[in-house]
């Protein structure tokens, strides 16, 4: 399975994104990383170009809902709505359901064990 780890918006904290990227790579997935400060349009474009199955958005600034919404809208507009979107970062509990309602497949809030994140991706990879 091929995945895109993406840093949307203006947030420059990339520790989590890079750790998850390394863990997924070591778990046998093919990982593409966007680098910092990508717009939702750039992320949608990269996901389609790279033909990934999952996009992992990493946001620590608090702007996760808006950015996830923009990426999901962009994917649907491009006919790529089948690409799963997951979100990791500083996501307070009250936002988890809101993200799910937008169409985010899974949320990995701060404090999620790395093993749980890898397990979720591997589950999709098998199915």
């Amino acid at each position, binding site marked *: 399975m091929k995945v895109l*780890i993406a840093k949307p*918006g*203006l*947030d*420059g*904290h*990339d*520790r989590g*994104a*890079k*750790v998850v*990227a*390394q*863990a997924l*790579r070591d778990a046998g997935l093919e*990982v593409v*990383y*966007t*680098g*910092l*400060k990508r*717009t939702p349009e750039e992320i949608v474009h990269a996901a389609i170009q790279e033909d990934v199955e999952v996009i992992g958005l990493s946001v620590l*600034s*608090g*702007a996760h*809902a*808006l*950015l996830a919404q923009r990426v999901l809208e962009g994917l649907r507009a491009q006919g790529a709505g089948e690409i799963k979107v997951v979100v990791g970062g*500083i996501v*307070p*509990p*009250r936002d988890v359901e809101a993200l799910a309602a937008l169409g985010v497949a899974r949320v990995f*809030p*701060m*404090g999620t*064990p*790395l*093993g749980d994140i890898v397990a979720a991706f591997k589950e999709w990879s098998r199915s």
Partner: protein
Amino acid sequence: MRDIRAHAGFPVKPVYGPEDLAGFDPARDLGAPGEYPFTRGIHPHMYRDRLWTMRQYIGFGTPGETNARFKYLMAHGQDALNVAFDLPTQLGLDSDDPRAEGEVGRVGMAIDTLADMEEAFAGIPLDRVSVSLTINGMAAPITAMYYAVAEKQGAAADRVVTTPQNDILKEFIARGTWIYPVEPSLRLVADLIEFSAKRYPRSNPVSVCGYHIREAGCTTAQEMAYGLAIAAAYVQLMLARGMSVDEFAPRISFNFTCWGKIFEEVAKFRAGRRLYARMMRERFGATNPRSWMFRSLIGGGGSAFTVQEPENNIVRGAYIALAAALAGAQTMALPTYDEAYTIPSAKAQLIALRTMQICAEESGAADTVDPLAGSYHVEALTNEMETAIVAEMDAVERMGGIVEAVKSGALQAEVARQAYLFEQRLASGEIPKVAVNAFVSEGPADADREVELYAFDPKVAEAQAARLARIRRERDDRAARAALARLSGEARGQGNLMPAIGEAVAAYATLGEINRAMKDVFGEHKEPVRFA
């Protein structure tokens, strides 16, 4: 017996004794407090003469809201400020820029023009309160705004004490608020240092940060090594401008984190002070003792705090404060217990401030200088840490030096690799974390959460945009445009940009306009994208 390693990687023994200090020469390796090489601290009596400055990091919403929180903390005994700016401000985007959507006033306060800065510091006398500004890519214009506010308040230039972070090299490694390519970014760092050294002699125009690199995943030894390498790079930059080292070095300051193992952290700072003093005196030939002093904000360490059972973070904060005091901090700032959830609540901020005050007033940690000196363990650790730091500085040299290592992305890759190794040490239980990988409670990890979540108000963006529109309407537009044109022209040359930036600020040019005037000339940084 369980094997234990320092965060830096070397083994920690169960017992230390005289045999661990073979060749140890207190006169050479420690010196007296306040004397070269400052291993024991930079002042003879440390906290007995002057307690560390308490400087909680805060800023959110509009300048008016932030001003109110500043005053709240000062009313409870905080004696200095530490300003957080929102991401659009840090990246030079106006509040009405499409790329700022959803971010205005979120992780700090929004600043668009000098008018915002005037409001942020209204009623706060800038000739008496020292203020650090967490700003890097936009340090030159934001500090120009700060100087302009101070001048408007009537503060004498030699009474203005501000510390813009202005450390762009660490932004390329961690934190990511870079804008321009590496070389013009360094030029702006140097412009602000040079201008401030000449005009605002008590300002600290650069705060070299190991903090954010450690937060991004590097080890304790790497944190100090990279910080010292960055400091050396800025010294060389200023020497290349024809300044003498003693003209600017006394005002270089540092910002480091302090979490994890208390004695390792103390050793890190003792070794760092010794190495910095030697580097400045022997390598760079500084003769003013103030140029040899590693003056540091110590504290922070949000990555030490956990989502699980957040109240435990209050206890972790107390240990951080103790370690920072034992390490000889000049300034202290603590993360708040709600760090992993939200922008700090007023309650969480107050608990952090009270934690430092309890450490200072009740614990005895501030009574005696460098109380761990002479401990077999701490002196041996200090020596081991010094060796480890030097090895990491050599590794940076093998990458071509810090500037080349940043341009190629080799250093960023090393930090990411260390972050991953740290996760593995956590997952294996080698690094214990209570309620995370040790003594984990039954039931959901989010039980008993009592965190007041900051209610981000999207109206902040509307308020800022309206204010910005009014400033654009009311200002002398011709003067603003002329100042911006002059700034672009100067950017094409080699001169110091601070006077032109100051002119644009005074004409109420927006931060976005000032950024664009420079970006048109400098271009944008292209990140060397890699995750390992």
